[in-house]
């Protein structure tokens, strides 16, 4: 809650910016990645893999449009398969970015400065991946605009009692505000790139994007006001989007879906997987681009602790779901839990418990939080766990609900897998382009941090 300023708190906490940096060194080091260091071989290699996965996604989608959703494993009763699992997973990942950029800005937590830019980029790309899935799942995605309440001649009107319609508004608002917030934050840095660019093309492109930024006092004042306002708008969205996603389930009376704890549980789970993704991206990035001065161990440690805390909210929710299934005395709820634990998808359930609850407890140990390899592996483990959690919620409840005669198993087909892995390709393609063409750490916020550190020298 309380701001932990660099320098001010040096007696108790490590710095959020390694000592010895000046305005110039910060600007040089971050802008060089985009302007002068050129395209590295490793970047090319990673980008090639991402593009290959993206092409696979395109192929899978082409076949889907040609043949229909029947190529997926979905059936009656399991009408929501991988598409919805992936939707919830991706949109959850996005939440950490907004939390870091908006909520922590309002809380004046300055450690956010060095991670917020790429965390926000992660949000936007994750929302892009997420938004794709419900559209693909519709069967006739070219009619998606029917979801909007516009005056038409078909006497068609969305069902406003359906949370699926709320989703349309929640997700599109979230995407809009996230993009705006990200772009506004980029403007001063784009101007820096424009001024430092050496070729005409770069100067023109960055020049157009920086929207005439000259860095006057008036510009900065308006910039600060706009940032605060956007942060104020974005903060409730962190909670609202995943709350609405949780309503997709809870508003139905399906056993295992209709549970009052879902809204806070989904939000916590979203932040849990989101921070895992931020760590997964930050750990290789800081190593490969030598950004250890900006993204310090302090950041890693803090984010690991947030993961641990949100992980426990998720754990609490599992405990409550299980307890209430028995306490309620409702035979369907009880069966739902027993079916998850010992039914046909029991293996998935227990892997989920191991990956989401048991293994992440290693984060209590400081050494684990500060060893980048273990932290990276733990983050992957949490992301797997959170994906499996959505799988368990969606598939076990749909495959066996009230009447045994309407039960049915769900098995993903190769098209399901190709679409899922392909969406990871889409995400990383966008992300690779981002780190190549835009400053992945906010240059002007780092300058501000240098200023503050100099003003109050570390004790």
């Amino acid at each position, binding site marked *: 809650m309380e701001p932990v300023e660099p320098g001010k708190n040096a007696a*108790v906490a490590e710095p959020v910016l390694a000592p010895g940096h000046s305005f110039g060194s910060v600007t040089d080091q971050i802008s060089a990645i985009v302007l002068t260091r050129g395209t590295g071989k490793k970047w090319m290699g990673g980008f090639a893999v991402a593009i290959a996965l993206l092409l696979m996604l395109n192929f899978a989608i082409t076949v889907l449009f040609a043949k229909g959703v029947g190529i997926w494993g979905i059936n009656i009763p399991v009408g929501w398969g991988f598409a919805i699992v992936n939707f919830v997973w991706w949109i959850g990942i996005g939440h950490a970015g907004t939390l870091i950029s908006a909520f922590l800005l309002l809380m004046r937590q300055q450690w956010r400065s060095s991670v917020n830019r790429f965390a926000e980029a992660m949000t936007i790309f994750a929302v892009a991946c997420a938004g794709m899935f419900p559209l693909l799942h519709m069967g006739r995605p070219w009619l998606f605009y029917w979801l909007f309440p516009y005056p038409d001649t078909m006497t068609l009107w969305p069902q406003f009692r359906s949370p699926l319609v709320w989703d349309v508004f929640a997700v599109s608002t979230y995407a809009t505000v996230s993009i705006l917030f990200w772009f506004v934050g980029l403007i001063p840095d784009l101007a820096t790139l424009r001024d430092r660019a050496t070729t005409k093309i770069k100067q023109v492109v960055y020049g157009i994007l920086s929207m005439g930024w000259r860095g006057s006092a008036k510009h900065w004042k308006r910039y600060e006001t706009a940032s605060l306002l956007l942060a104020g708008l974005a903060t409730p969205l962190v909670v609202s989007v995943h709350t609405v996603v949780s309503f997709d389930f809870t508003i139905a*009376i399906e056993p295992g879906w209709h*549970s*009052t704890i879902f809204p806070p549980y989904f939000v916590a789970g979203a932040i849990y997987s989101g921070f895992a993704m931020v760590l997964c991206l930050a750990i290789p990035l800081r190593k490969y681009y030598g950004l250890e001065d900006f993204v310090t161990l302090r950041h890693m440690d803090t984010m690991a602790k947030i993961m641990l805390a949100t992980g426990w909210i998720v754990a*609490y929710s599992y405990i*409550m779901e299980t307890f209430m299934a028995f306490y309620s005395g409702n035979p369907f709820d009880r069966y739902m839990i027993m079916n998850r634990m010992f039914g046909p998808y029991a293996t998935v359930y227990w892997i989920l418990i191991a990956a989401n609850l048991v293994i992440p407890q290693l984060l209590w140990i400081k050494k684990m939080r500060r060893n980048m390899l273990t932290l990276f592996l733990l983050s992957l483990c949490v992301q797997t766990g959170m994906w499996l959690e959505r799988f368990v919620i969606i598939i076990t409840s749909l495959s066996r609900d009230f009447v045994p005669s309407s039960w049915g198993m769900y098995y993903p087909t190769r098209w399901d897998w190709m679409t899922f892995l392909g969406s990871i390709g889409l995400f990383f393609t966008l992300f690779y382009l981002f780190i190549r063409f835009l400053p992945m750490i906010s240059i002007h916020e780092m300058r501000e941090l240098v200023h503050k550190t100099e003003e109050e020298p570390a004790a």
Partner: protein
Amino acid sequence: MNDSPATVLSRIQQRSLGIGIVVSAICAWGAYVHWTRFLQAYLVAFFFWLNISLGCFAILMLQHMIKGRWGLVIRRSLEAGASTLPLMVLFFIPLLAGHARLYPPPPTTGFKAVYLNWPFFLGRAVFYFAVWVLMAWLLNKWSDDQDRTGDPVFQARLTRLSGPGLIIFGLTITFAAVDWVMSLETGFFSTIYGMIFMVAAALAAMAFITVMAMILARYKPLSEVATAERFHNYGNLLLVFVLLWAYLSFSQFLIIWAGNLQDEIPWYVSRAYGGWGVIALFLVLFHFAIPFVLLLNRPITKSSRALAGVAIALFIMGWVDLYWIIEPAFRPQGPQLSWMDIATPFGLGGLWMAVFLQKLRKRPLLPLHDPRFEEVLEYD
């Protein structure tokens, strides 16, 4: 203004003790005359003060974890609040005595037959209190040791206990709420229920602590450190808890309303119509909408007086909230206020305040060896 905090606190303590003894005696007479009605009123009053004790306990651990400067000024009050938990054990005795009268008999078969039967119910109550009392004692003891020796090892211990401590707090208060309140209506269940109780406890305690901070900030030494910025922090914390309370309560309502299932919906049917419906609306306005708008205003959160006004309102609304959650179990047709509904919180509260202030008075009002201490003096 020339008074020292010690004399002010001791004056409040004497008055509280007086009120506590007199009102408790009158309530004891009420219990003798109308045992069932007394128990019903008493349960609300008991939970009201339990919320304050447990909320102090939880926020104390929270500030040990987050290490924000806001925690320094209120740390002693939080510790004193947590140290009232042994008193809550004493307050629990009438509920045990009236257990059979207050709670419907558990079903004879199924999970509830095992879970809600008397020995298990009692055993769990003993367990919750044992855990709370032990942890609150440790938090206070290490704090005393820190004061005496200045050894940084104690701060490390406090921080180390607080992480697991918060998890234990969350689980125990949840099951306590299920055992002592949810079980009043046998059919009802809700997975978010425990979280609502956690947040209600934190909100009530934060409101109480804000008022205490306002009183203490008038005198040295707290007047030196309790700046407008600190009260702004407390205002923000109150705002966060108000929002969380509204978010969780509305989530529960929307999901149960939309589901409209016969197990769950009666809980809201009795609470949303007639007299209870009026109280529900009152809660929406005064436990959420109005405090929310007020707490967004910096002039209010930065003035200790104005903020304390909002905090007092929230403190009282905490009781209304519990009344609305608990009482419809006995009177689904509508509220019937008894004098004991009003008297019992004062009876328990007087005694609670006396114990709280006793603890608060015993020690310096600022933890001298808190690592944040110098920082606050230097920069605020």
